[in-house]
């Protein structure tokens, strides 16, 4: 692999905009990292391109997680991908947003083997469906968990349960 010159955020921003243009909804920089918002249809092409392009080589999926913004109507749920280009040593953050009515996101397992469990976890926490995922099941909780605990409407503590005795709490 030929040694490419060190790139910076600016370069990434420009090249991604050149490549995808309007598909990229916004690019901002905060705390030294690019926040790129794309629509979820372009997710796979963008990430594939980011991974494969010689000058970028974002071949490392640092993390993947969901976020729930209950008050952003029509964009309640978001999935955030942290990508890292080891050779260039640049990290970027990619956001996709979706409404609660349509929680389907294409899976990244085809590109990163490591995305498997991260997606399962996100599914479990937020109920986001990763289409094409080989084995989308709950991973951390009991299998018959019937809600998605990290959504904001659910409290931390499950108040219906009986295994708690307030006598032992300081409140």
């Amino acid at each position, binding site marked *: 692999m030929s040694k490419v010159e060190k790139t910076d955020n600016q370069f990434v921003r420009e090249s991604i905009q050149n490549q995808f243009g309007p598909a990229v909804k916004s690019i901002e920089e905060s705390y030294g990292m690019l926040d790129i918002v794309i629509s979820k249809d372009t997710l796979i092409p963008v990430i594939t391109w980011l991974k494969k392009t010689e000058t970028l080589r974002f071949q490392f999926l640092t993390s993947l997680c969901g976020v729930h913004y209950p008050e952003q109507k029509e964009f309640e749920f978001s999935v955030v991908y942290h990508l890292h280009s080891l050779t260039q040593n640049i990290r970027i953050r990619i956001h996709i947003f979706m409404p609660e009515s349509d929680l389907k996101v294409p899976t990244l397992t085809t590109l990163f083997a490591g995305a498997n469990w991260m997606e399962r976890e996100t599914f479990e926490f937020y109920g986001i469906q990763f289409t094409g995922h080989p084995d989308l099941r709950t991973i*951390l*909780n*009991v299998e018959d968990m019937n809600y998605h*605990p990290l959504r904001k409407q*659910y409290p*931390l*503590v*499950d108040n219906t349960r*009986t*295994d*708690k*005795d307030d006598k*032992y*709490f300081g409140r």
Partner: protein
Amino acid sequence: MGINPELIPIKNGPEMYTGEGYGLTQIEKVIGLARANSIWPLPFATSCCGIEFMATMAATYDLGRFGAERLSFSPRQADLLMVMGTIAKKMGPVLRQVYIQMAEPKWVIAVGACASSGGIFDTYSVLQGIDKVIPVDVYVPGCPPPPEAILDGILKIQDLIKQEPIRRRESPQYKELLASYDIQ
């Protein structure tokens, strides 16, 4: 179905052993001493507290001094179930099964805030104290309890064992206790 924890009486410390037939015979004393000095723990170490348990086993504190260094991971062989660390709901049935499969006489010690009461993890997924699923004999506070505290718990268990009448495990009270946990 799950047990209804409201029905579970909170167990009353060592007094419950003193009730019937207090005053141990000589033989009972000897047996009690023997049992107390030969505790084989089953370390049910799930998380951080398990690391402190390691420290307790290690040279500086040496659980072996109490004759308890022989860990047995098979419940058949263990005398003391040491629950160390968070017990999530997913783990609850497993813990119960292990407890049930232990051979009598058996004791349980809940080490650390999590095992005893859930600790800071007052969350949807964590059991708020293992005494919701199995009877506990000694609680050790701390998060994690320092090795001294764990040893203190072991000493307490030893006291308990020394006081236990030999027929306690066949007494109706004990059966009742188990029944209240839905264990026949």
